[in-house]
């Protein structure tokens, strides 16, 4: 195929690019296959059409922090998971609490995390999230010892299907719970 000319051809290119990507693609990246032959406005329009065409089908075109991606419809995921019997390891409560502190209170130092949790932070926990590229160091705090400041990354948002931190579930206050003690 020479350079795509018709809307149909452009959508096929776009669909193929997104279905093979394995990661979210930004608008800038999605323009590359067209080698300068597409306007951003057209691209947005085509993405929107593609999204609508796929509605109700096996995959859905969604927008996350770093861009657009096709993902399996949520209700199909349980069947896909059966393909690989080794289920992905779940994180320990300590790890999840640490991650939550970084996500909701960022940027934070290890000291901040320790103060909130009341216990020493296991360095392995930080390491595993760094390795997964969910958190990274965004600076040093201007206090004695200049401790590192940690924050969540774009990959964290992408992996949780979020466009921005504001889409994180809102924090609930203890007192709100108090009303329904039976929930415990």
């Amino acid at each position: 195929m020479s350079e795509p000319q018709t809307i149909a051809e452009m959508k096929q290119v776009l669909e193929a690019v997104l279905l093979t990507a394995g990661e979210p693609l930004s608008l800038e990246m999605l323009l590359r296959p067209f080698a300068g032959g597409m306007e951003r406005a057209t691209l947005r329009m085509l993405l929107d059409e593609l999204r609508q065409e796929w509605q109700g089908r096996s995959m859905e075109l969604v927008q996350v922090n770093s861009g657009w991606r096709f993902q399996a419809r949520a209700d199909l995921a349980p069947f896909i998971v059966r393909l690989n019997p080794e289920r992905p390891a779940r994180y320990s409560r300590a790890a999840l609490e640490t991650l939550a502190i970084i996500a909701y209170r960022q940027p934070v130092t290890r000291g901040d995390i320790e103060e909130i949790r009341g216990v020493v932070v296991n360095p392995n926990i930080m390491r595993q999230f760094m390795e997964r590229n969910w958190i990274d160091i965004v600076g040093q705090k201007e206090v004695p010892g200049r401790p590192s400041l940690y924050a969540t990354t774009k990959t964290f948002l992408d992996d949780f299907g979020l466009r921005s931190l504001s889409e994180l579930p809102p924090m609930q206050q203890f007192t709100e719970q108090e009303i329904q003690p039976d929930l415990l």
Partner: protein
Amino acid sequence: MAVQLAFDVRIYGEQLDSIPQDLYIPPDALAVYLEAFEGPLDLLLYLIRKHNLDILDIPMAQLTSQYMEYVEKMRESRLELAAEYLLMSAMLIEIKSRMLLPKPETLEQEEDPRAELVRRLMEYEAIKLAAERLDALPQAGREIQVARAYYEHIAEASWPEVSFDELMVAWQSVLKRASHFQHHRVGRAELSVREHMSLVLRRLQQESLVEFTQLFDVVNDGMPKLVVYFLAILELAREGLVRITQQVAFSPIYLQAADTPATLQGT
């Protein structure tokens, strides 16, 4: 009230869904159970929930004695008790004693000694809940499966970029290392000569024998170019890359590549 555990606790391989109501817990089970706490704040929150205490008006005496009871059990079962637990004991006792002190009426209203503890407990509780909600979100590789179909990676010829400067730096480093080029200079004129040496050789590849005058386009090439051609031929001859032949004086002069079979000579 049986308190549901938000995590797996197994005793002798059996799932423990709730914490036993009676105070007596077999020491081994206690170990598993206490280890399930994430720290003193977690234990305190558990006690507050279990005994339905009001977090905004904590009865310090009651909470402190319950906390100490657990900590004592941990020591009895010779668990390695994290320092944080002991630190918290001290803090609870301190708050309790400060509350027992009569408040001097003349002073400004003092802050409730429990305020800091309450703030920390509330913050920790909020984070605990946030962690659970975070874990409940769909996650890539777990509930989110991203499309990643195959495509043929056609190797599009992509060559490394090279700039003038890089080429120059490379040549410079060659010169620096090669001692016999120590004083070598390559000027524009010499580059032209070398370029034309290649041109002449290229031509001699196609036409094995070229008459000398045919190499020059006297009409179109300016004098400088003709000179460069001439110098190129001389240099080629000097380096033994071409043979120049003439049968007799004033007859045409022929050029051929030095590697051309000798039989062609003098044709």
